C-alpha cells in the first residue's frame, strides 16, 4: 500500500504552480494543501482519533453509569484487561467467533466476488448491464433489512427453508437454525457475502476491463487455461486492486454488529454466538460496565491494527523483492 502511495507521489501530480510574482503568493501556495486539509483533519481528529484515545482511557477505569453521569474518573489500572484475558468466554467463544468468521467471510466474499467479476467480464455488454444491476440490488439492500429478510427465510416456524425441506420430505420437524452457533454463523456469512460481494465484484470487474485483451488472448493461444490465465496475468496486474479489496473486506467483516445483534438470540441470550463487537456493546450498555466494554473495544481495535499492519508489511516486502 505504501508503495502505491509513494509511486503516486513520485509520478508527480506536480504541485500547482501559480505564477510566482510575489512571495506572498508563494506562502499561500505552500499553505494551501493544509488549508484544504484542515476541515477534514479537524473532523477526523475530533470524531475518530480523540474518541479512540478516550476509549483507551475509559478502558483503564471502572467506568459505570455513575461516572458517566458525573464525569468523574475512577482509574483501576489494567484490571479490565486482566478480567477479559482471564475470562474463558473470550478464548472459547468470542475470539474464535470473531476471527474465524472474518476469515471465512472475507475469503468467501473475495473469491465469490472475483468469480462474478470474471463471469461478468466475459459477457456481452447487455448481459453485463443486467447482471450488474442485479448485483447493485444485492448491494443496495440495507444491512438491517437484509438481516430481517434472512431471518424470515430461515425462521423456524414459518420460514421458507424449513417449509421447503419439510415439503420435500427431507426433514420431519422444524429445525431452529439460530440456536446452533455453526448454522447461526452460516446464516450471518450468507448475509455478509450477499451484501459484501458486489463491492468486490464491481471493483475487480473494472480492473479486469483494464487488463489488455492482447495479453489474455496471447496467453490463451499459448494454451493457458482459465486458472493459469488468472494467476499468470490477471492477479499480478490487479494486485493493488486485490489488496484494497481484501483489506477493506477484512476491516468490514471484523466489525459486523447489526447482522448478529438483530438475529434471534444474537443480543446476548445465546452466549455461544457472541463476537467482540456485540460482547462490548452488551457489557457496556446492558451491564453499565463502560470501562470493561471499552477494554473489549480496544482489544478489537488492536486486533484490526495488527492484521492490517501485517498485511501492509507483506505487501511492502513483496513489492520490494
Amino acid at each position, binding site marked *: 500500500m505504501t508503495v502505491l502511495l509513494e509511486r503516486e507521489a513520485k509520478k508527480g501530480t506536480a504541485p500547482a504552480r501559480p505564477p510566482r510574482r510575489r512571495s506572498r503568493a508563494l506562502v499561500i501556495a505552500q499553505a494551501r494543501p493544509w*488549508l*484544504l486539509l484542515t*476541515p477534514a483533519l479537524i473532523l477526523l481528529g475530533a470524531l475518530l482519533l480523540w474518541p479512540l484515545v478516550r476509549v483507551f482511557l475509559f478502558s483503564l477505569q471502572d467506568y459505570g*453509569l*455513575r461516572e*458517566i*453521569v458525573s464525569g468523574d474518573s475512577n482509574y483501576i489500572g489494567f484490571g479490565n484487561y486482566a478480567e477479559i484475558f482471564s475470562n474463558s468466554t473470550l478464548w472459547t467463544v468470542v475470539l474464535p467467533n470473531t476471527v474465524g468468521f472474518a476469515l471465512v467471510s472475507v475469503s468467501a466474499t473475495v473469491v465469490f466476488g472475483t468469480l462474478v467479476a470474471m463471469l461478468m467480464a466475459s459477457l456481452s455488454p447487455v448481459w453485463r448491464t443486467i447482471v450488474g444491476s442485479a448485483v447493485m440490488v444485492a448491494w443496495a439492500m440495507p444491512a438491517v433489512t437484509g438481516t430481517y429478510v434472512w431471518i424470515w427465510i430461515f*425462521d*423456524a*416456524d414459518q420460514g421458507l427453508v424449513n417449509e421447503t425441506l419439510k415439503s420435500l420430505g427431507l426433514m420431519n*420437524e*422444524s*429445525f*431452529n437454525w*439460530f*440456536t*446452533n452457533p455453526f448454522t447461526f454463523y452460516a446464516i450471518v456469512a450468507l448475509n455478509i457475502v450477499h451484501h459484501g460481494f458486489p463491492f468486490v465484484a464491481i471493483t475487480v470487474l473494472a480492473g479486469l476491463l483494464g487488463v489488455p485483451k492482447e495479453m489474455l488472448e496471447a496467453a490463451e493461444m499459448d494454451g493457458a487455461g482459465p486458472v493459469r490465465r488468472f494467476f499468470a496475468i490477471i492477479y499480478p496486474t490487479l494486485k493493488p486492486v486485490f489488496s484494497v479489496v481484501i483489506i477493506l473486506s477484512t476491516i468490514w467483516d471484523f466489525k459486523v454488529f447489526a447482522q448478529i445483534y438483530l438475529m*434471534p*438470540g444474537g443480543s*446476548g*441470550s*445465546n*452466549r*455461544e454466538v457472541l463476537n467482540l463487537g456485540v460482547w462490548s456493546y*452488551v457489557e457496556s*450498555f*446492558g*451491564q*453499565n460496565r463502560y470501562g470493561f466494554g471499552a477494554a473489549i473495544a480496544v482489544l478489537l481495535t488492536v486486533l484490526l491494527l495488527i492484521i492490517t499492519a501485517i498485511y501492509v508489511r507483506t505487501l511492502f516486502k513483496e513489492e520490494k523483492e
Partner: protein
Amino acid sequence: MKKRYLPIAMFAIAALGLTACSGGGTDSPTDDTLDVWIMQGTNPDTEAFFDTVGDAFTEKTGATLNVEFVQWADAHDRFVTAIAGGTTPDIAETGTTWTAEFADSGALAPIDDYVAEAGLEDDLVQGLVDSGTYDGSLFGMPWYAGVRSIIYRTDVFAELGLAAPTTWQEIVDAATVIQAERPDLIPFPVPGDAEMLTYPWVWGAGGEVSTLEGDQWVSGLDADEAREGIRFYTGLATEHGFSSAGATTWKETDLLDNFSQGTVAMAISGSWTPATVLEKAPELEGKIGAIAIPGQNGGISPSVLGGSHLSMFEGSENKDLAWDFMELMTTGDFAQQWADQTGYFAGTESLLQPTIESDDPLVQPFAEQMVDGGASLPVTPTFGAVQAKKTTNAMIQSILSGQKTVDEATTDAAAEMNDIMNGN
C-alpha cells in the same frame, strides 16, 4: 480564494438547518409540558387511553402531556442511555425489578413526601411498595401489578375431553393427549428468551432464585430443588417434545403472538394477556380459559408478582406537576379503567379488593395466583443487571438447544448471578 471558507459556511448553515429541524420537537421541555414514557403493549388501546388522560391532565393542571411509548424489549437499554445522557423524561413507567437499579444510579427522585401529603401510605399494595423502596425511601409509585398463570384453549380441552391440570404430571398428561390428537397445535411451548416463565417452576419445586445470606447473595438456581423444577420445565420441550424448535428463540411476545394465531394449546401468560389476545384474534372469544400455575403435587406454583411503578426522575424540572400526573394515574377513575382494560391489578388496596372478589373466569384464576401464589424476585439494584445480562434466558436457551445439560447450565447461571449480584 473564498472557496476555503465554503465548508465552514456550509457547515454552519447545515447546523442551523438541522437544529431548526430538530428544535421543534420535544427536546426543549418548557415548564408546562410533562414528558412521560409508558411501556408499549400493556393496554391494547394504549394511545386512546392516554389521549383521554392527556385531556384530563390539561384540564386539571393546564399543562400538556407528552407521552412516548417504549417497548419492553429494549426499554432497559433506553433507560440506561437516557440516564447516562441526561435525557430522561419527567416520569416513566418502570418495571418493578428496575426501580431499585435506577434509584441506585441517582436518577430517580424519592416520593415519600408526596405520598404522605396525599394520605396514600396505607392504601398502596405492599408487594409493589417493597419493590419500589430503595435505601428506605420510596422511588416507585405503585401503578399496577400482574402475575403470570396458565392460559389454555378451552375448546381444545373440551374436544379432547381433558380437564384443566392441577399438578405437573397432569400438565404432561394433557399435553401428551393434545400432541397425539391435535398435531397442528404446539401443546406447551417453552420459550428460550423469557425468564419470567422459568421462575414458577423453580419456586414450585421448592427452590430459590437468589437469597441474601449475611451480606452475600447466594443463587439457588444450582440447588437440587431448583434443578428439578428447571428440568421439568425444559423437559416439556427436550424430553416430551411439547414445544417447537422455533420456541427456543422465542420471547414472551412471540409466545403470545403464536397463541393469538391459534397454534398453541397452553401457555404461561400474564393476567394482562387475554385482553390482548382477544383484540388480535376475536375468533378466540370464549375459547380461552385460565388456571393458576399448578403446584408440583397440587396447590399453586408461585409466580413473579410483577408490575410497574411510575417513577419520577431527578432531572425533572417540574416535580409537583409530575406528582399530579402520578396521582391522577394511580388513584381513582383512571387507575380503575387501566386495570379493567388491561387485566392488571390496581396498585391501591381500595381498588384491588373488588377485583380479587371477581368471578370472571379470565380474572379469578389470576387473582388467585396473585393472592396465594405471588412471589418476589430479589429486590436489589443488581438484579436488574442480572436481567440485562439475560442470565436466566441464556440458561434456558442453552438447555433447550442442547448446548448444555441442566446441571451445567444451572451451575453456570448461578455462578454468573452470584458474580453480578455481589459486585464481582
